[in-house]
C-alpha cells in the first residue's frame, strides 16, 4: 500500500495537522494523504431498493469535489425517471446519465474512467461482466456490497471489517472474485440508509404508525441495536476513494458511527412528532409471518463499526439519527403520505395475537381511579393480585387468563410468587404494611380501599423498586 506525502488540496480541505476537531479523526502518522485532482468516475447504479439514492448523492459529492461523473443506470428509463431518486438526475450539473443493462458491455459508457463504482450488483452473475471489462482499465474499483453478508455473532454483535462473512452470500462471491482478479477494489458494506430522495422506506415505517397514533409492533425486546445512516455521510465516505491508495484492497463498513435501539427509533420519532410511542413487543416466531411481513429490519442486533473508515479514509460523519429526526418528521409530514391509507392488516394480526387493546377515552377500561373490570372473571384475577389494573385495561380476556396462569403458583406446591418478594414472608400482607405503603406513597387510598392485600403487596413491590 503506497503512502503519499502531504500535498496541498485544491478543494480547500485542511491538510493534516490543523485545528483540533479536524485532526481528531486521524493521526499524522497513519493517514494516507488524499490527492485531490479531477478524476473521471463511472457510477453503475441500481434500479431500486435501499441503495439507489446512494448513486445520486455520490454523484453530487463527486461533482462537488471537481470530478467528472457518468452514471449508467439499470432499469427502464421510461418507468424510473419520474421516481425518486432518478427524478433528481436532472439536477446534477455536469453529470452524464445513460440507461442500460449493467451486465452487457455494449451499454458501458466510453471511458476512460479512473474510478468505477458498482452500486448495483448483488451476485457474481450480475457483477462479473463489469469487473472483467474494467480489469486493468481503472485505478479504483468500488463495490457497494452489504453488511448483511456478515455472519451474525450473538456474543460480540458489532460487525468489524474482517469478521466472518456468510459464505453463501452473493455479495461475498463478488468480493472473492475481485480478490482473485487482483482488482484495485474497495468494498463498502452498508446497512439501513435514510435521507432525501430514497427509493425505499427506512424510518418511514415507524412514522406511518406513530403519526397516525397507531401502536408500533416491534419484534423481540426492542433493545436490538441497528445502524441508521444518513445518505450524505455515506456518499462522503464513498467519495474518499479516488486517489486514496490506502483504500485499495480494503473493506469498509458503510455506516454511521452511531447505532440506535429499535425502541429508540420509535421513541425519537414520537418525541419529534409530539406524540407518545405505543410500542408493542411480540415474538415473531409465534406469528406465522411470511418473508417481508411485519417488521422492515432484521430482528437481532445488526450494527457495524465505522472506525476503520475514520482511520483510513479520514472520514467523519456529520449526521446521526437523533440529530436528524425532527427534519425527517417534517419531511414525512410534507410528503402527503399521511393522506393515504397504508395496509395495516399484518399489524392488526400481530396486535390481535398479543391481545393488544387500545385504551380510548369513553371505553369501559380506563386508567383513572375506579376498578376497570368488565366481567367477573377479570375482577377475580385482579383481586387475586395476578394482574395489574393497567393490564386489565389493555389486554384481552384471553391474554389476561394467560398471564394469570403463568403467574399462579404451579400445582405441585412450588413457592408462591409473593414469597419472592420477602424471604420467608407469608403470602398476605398485614395492615401495618398497608399503612407503610400508603405513607411511602406506593399505593393510593383508593387502591387501599379497593384492592386485596395481595394486590397491594404486588403494587408496592412493583412501584417501590
Amino acid at each position, binding site marked *: 500500500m503506497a503512502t503519499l506525502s502531504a500535498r496541498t488540496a485544491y478543494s480547500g480541505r485542511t491538510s493534516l495537522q490543523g485545528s483540533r476537531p479536524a485532526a481528531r479523526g486521524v493521526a499524522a502518522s497513519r493517514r494516507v494523504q488524499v490527492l485531490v485532482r479531477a478524476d473521471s468516475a463511472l457510477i453503475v447504479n441500481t434500479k431500486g431498493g435501499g441503495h439507489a439514492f446512494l448513486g445520486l448523492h455520490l454523484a453530487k459529492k463527486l461533482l462537488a469535489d471537481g470530478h467528472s461523473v457518468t452514471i449508467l443506470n439499470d432499469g427502464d428509463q421510461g418507468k424510473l425517471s419520474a421516481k425518486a431518486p432518478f427524478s433528481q438526475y436532472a439536477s446534477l450539473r455536469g453529470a452524464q446519465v445513460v440507461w442500460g443493462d449493467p451486465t452487457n458491455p455494449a451499454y458501458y459508457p466510453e471511458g476512460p474512467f479512473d474510478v468505477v463504482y458498482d452500486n448495483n450488483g448483488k451476485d457474481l452473475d450480475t457483477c462479473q461482466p463489469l469487473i472483467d471489462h474494467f480489469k486493468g482499465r481503472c485505478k479504483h474499483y468500488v463495490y457497494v456490497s452489504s453488511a448483511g453478508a456478515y455472519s451474525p455473532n450473538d*456474543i460480540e454483535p458489532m460487525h468489524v471489517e474482517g469478521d466472518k462473512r456468510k459464505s453463501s452470500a452473493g455479495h461475498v462471491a463478488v468480493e472473492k472474485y475481485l480478490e482473485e482478479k487482483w482488482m484495485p477494489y474497495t468494498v463498502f458494506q452498508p446497512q439501513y440508509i435514510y435521507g432525501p430522495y430514497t427509493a425505499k422506506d427506512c424510518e418511514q415505517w415507524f412514522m406511518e404508525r406513530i403519526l397516525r397514533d397507531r401502536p408500533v409492533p416491534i419484534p423481540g425486546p426492542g433493545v436490538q441495536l441497528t445502524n441508521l445512516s444518513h445518505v450524505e455521510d455515506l456518499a462522503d465516505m464513498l467519495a474518499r476513494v479516488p486517489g486514496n491508495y490506502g483504500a485499495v484492497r480494503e473493506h469498509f463498513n458503510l455506516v454511521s458511527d452511531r447505532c440506535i435501539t429499535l425502541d429508540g427509533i420509535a421513541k425519537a420519532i414520537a418525541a419529534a412528532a409530539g406524540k407518545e410511542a405505543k410500542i408493542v413487543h411480540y415474538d415473531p416466531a409465534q406469528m406465522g409471518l411470511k418473508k417481508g411481513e411485519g417488521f422492515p429490519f432484521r430482528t437481532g442486533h445488526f450494527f457495524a463499526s465505522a472506525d476503520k473508515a475514520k482511520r483510513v479514509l479520514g472520514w467523519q460523519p456529520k449526521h446521526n439519527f437523533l440529530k436528524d429526526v425532527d427534519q425527517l418528521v417534517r419531511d414525512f409530514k410534507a410528503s402527503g403520505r399521511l393522506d393515504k391509507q397504508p395496509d395495516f392488516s399484518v399489524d392488526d394480526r400481530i396486535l390481535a395475537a398479543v391481545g393488544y387493546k387500545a385504551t380510548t377515552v369513553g371505553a369501559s377500561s380506563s386508567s383513572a381511579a375506579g376498578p376497570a373490570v368488565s366481567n367477573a372473571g377479570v375482577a377475580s384475577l385482579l383481586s387475586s393480585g395476578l394482574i395489574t389494573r393497567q393490564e386489565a385495561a389493555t389486554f384481552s380476556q384471553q391474554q389476561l387468563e394467560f398471564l394469570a396462569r403463568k403467574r399462579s403458583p404451579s400445582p405441585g406446591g412450588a413457592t408462591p410468587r409473593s414469597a419472592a418478594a420477602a424471604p420467608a414472608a407469608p403470602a398476605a400482607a398485614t395492615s401495618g404494611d398497608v399503612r407503610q405503603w400508603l405513607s411511602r406513597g406506593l399505593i393510593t387510598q383508593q387502591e387501599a380501599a379497593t384492592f386485596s392485600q395481595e394486590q397491594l403487596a404486588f403494587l408496592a413491590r412493583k412501584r417501590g423498586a
Partner: protein
Amino acid sequence: MAATMRCSVGVQGAAGRAAAPRALASPAPFAGLRRANALDAKETCPIQQARAAVSRRAAAAAARAAAPRATTVMSANVAPKKILMLGGTRFIGLYLARQLIEAGHDVTLLTRGKKPVTYRIPDDTDASYERFASSVKHIACDRTDAVAMKAALANKGFEVVYDINGREADECAIVLDAVGAHNLQQYIFCSSAGVYKKSDQMPHREEDEVDFKSRHKGKLFTEELLQQRGVNWTSVRPVYIYGPLNYNPVEEFFFHRLKAGRPICVPGSGMQVTQLGHVKDLATAFVRILGNPKAARQVYNVAGERFVTFDGLAKACAAAMGLPEPEIVHYNPKEYDFGKAKAFPMRDQHFFASVDKAIEELDWQPEFGLLDGLRDSYEKDFGRGTYRKEPDFTPDDMILSKVKGKAFA
C-alpha cells in the same frame, strides 16, 4: 529499549507462548483485534477460532516487541517524572505503578497505610517485583485531610499526579492545594463512563451528554474543578474494568456460578450490550497520557474495542474457563425484591463507549480481546483459587424458584 516500554507487565503471558504463524484464518467471535481482510469462509469451531486468535495476538505482540515501532512511543521519550499516585495499591494502580516504574519514573503511592503498599501479584516475576518494590515510594496520609495532605506533600516537587481513586471535587481540591501548582505538569484522573446519560443511541462518545444526577457525578464535578483551576488535566472514563485482582465482582460473578455448575441468571432478554476493558490495557492508556500534549484537557473513553451482550459474556466466561456453554435463565428484575443483594453485576441497560479517540490520540490500542482477557483474569486469579467476595446465591435461588419452580439443588 523504546519498543519494550509498551506493556512490560502482561506481555509476559502472551509473548511467552510460541508465536504461531500469522495465518489468515477466520477471526474468532472473541478476537477483538484489528485484523487483515481475510475472506476465509471455512467453518471452524469457535474454540479453534479462539485459539487461532490468541496465537495471532501472541504473534502480533511478539512482533511488536521485537521490532521498534515507526511511530513515536510518547512515554518512552518522556523524561522521568516525579509522580504521585493516589490509589495505587488495589487494582488499576497495581499495574500502572509497575508500568511507570519500568518506564523509569519516580513513583510515590499515597495511601492511608492500613494495608501493605507493595505485595507480589501473579504478573510479577522475581526480578520485576524486586525492581518495583525497591523503587516505589510511599507516603501515608488520609487524602481527605487537607491539613495533613499539605504537610505531607508541600514542596515535594511532584510533577504529575495520577488520581485513581478520587470521587469528589473536594478531594481533588485538597490534592491540588497540597501538591501546589509550581511543579505540577499534569493531573491525570480516573473518572467513569458511568457519567454518560443513558441513551437509545450508542455508543457513548466523549462529547455526549453527561448525567449530573448519576452516582458518578462527583467525577464530573472533579473534571469541572480541574478545568476551572487551569490545570493541565486529562480524564479517563473506563467502562467495566476486569482482569486479575479485580475487586469489583464482574467476571468473578460468572466464574463463581460456572464453577458451582449453576445456571447464570440474566435479567431481561440478555441482549443488552456492554463492554469490558482489561486493567492492563487501561494502565497502558494511562501511561500513554503522560507527557502527551494531545491529551491536555481531554476526556478519553478507555475499554476494549468490542462490545458484548449479557448472554455473550456468560458464554465467554465459560469458554475462558474451558467449560461448555452455560445454562442461561432469563428473568424480569421488576418481579423481584432482592433487597441489598446484587442479582447481576452490571447495569440493566446498554452501556458501552467508543474508544476511537483514545486509539487515535494516545497511540494506544487494547491488547486484550474478550476471550484472552477473561482467560488472563481466570488463569491469574480465580483459577488459582483466589477471589474477592464469597458468592451469594440467594438472588439466584429466588429467580430459579420462580422461573423453574425450584431452587438449585
